[in-house]
């Protein structure tokens, strides 16, 4: 469990957390990026830029 940097609500995280992963805050809906895993540190995810993906 950690705190959403956007709205302050608790965010439940799953076990196989990976730095660079994106999780959603179920309270405010913002996309959060996992910066560190042990202990978990979250930050607002960057917007999609230019061409992402395939």
């Amino acid at each position, binding site marked *: 469990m950690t705190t959403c940097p956007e709205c302050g609500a608790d965010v439940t995280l799953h076990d*196989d957390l*990976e730095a660079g*992963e994106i999780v959603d805050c179920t309270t405010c809906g913002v996309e959060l990026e996992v910066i560190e895993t042990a202990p978990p540190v979250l930050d607002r995810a960057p917007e999609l830029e230019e061409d*992402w993906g*395939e």
Partner: protein
Amino acid sequence: MTVKIGVLYSRIRADEKLLLSELRERGHEVVKIDVRDLALAVDEAPEILADLDIVVDRCLATSRSVYVTQFLSAYGVPVVNGPETATVCADKVRTSLALDGAGVPTPATNVAFTTDSALAAIESFGYPCVLKPVVGSWGRLMAKIDSRSAAEAILEHKSTLGHYEHKVFYVQEFVEKPGRDLRVVAVDGEPIAGMVRSSDHWITNAAAGAETTALEIDDEIADLVAAASDAVGGGLLGVDLMETDDGYTVHEVNHTVEFKALNGSVDVDVPAAVVDWLEAKAAAEAAGEDGETTDGTELEVTH
């Protein structure tokens, strides 16, 4: 043999998690490299890239993928997919030329640089036809053009709002596919698995919510996938095909292929097959042509 493998990324999606867990389960040393942290010197590799047996590029952003693989290649670090493949696949114009040049059937395509010449190209195809950005993904910003008035409106919007990449008009014939298209994931032209993507929408993209089922890969498909892979420089690729009255046509080749949807649609363990291939690639690099590394030093292969 275990390897020290670098994973280049800017976002860890389900695909990367599948890959990371497979690599770790097999005991490989995984070095995650966030491209946002890199500053790449032209003459010397950053420390994080030292001693890597192989690097797999999982960057979502095309420009990052194209440049960082060029640096890795210049540093002598083996990378898949390589810069040649990334450069060709990142650009629809280059892809079309490569496919057509290799005799791979691909939809008829015109490229124009002004709205007037683009409109002429569209009229020569007739309606409907398709206008695509030369760089793009997930079926975004693709337009199916049904009439001259729609063509004029879209061209005006693109010329007014567009990024410079949208000043290149890529006009393609509309392929009357039967509500579905085919995606085959292959390693150096060898199919791992394929899926059929069905949708009522003309963009049958898994990321856009198409339904997926397993595809049986026949010889014709396998041959086309091998030829398409060769044409763009090989590597881990997603080859997209459509069925036409005259057989298959290859309309896209993706170089940072997503395999989560595929993995869920087929019996094949896709990440395991990808890691098998990465291991073989790393072993081949370690063995080298003459048992030496590119800088001439003797190799130490640990088993």
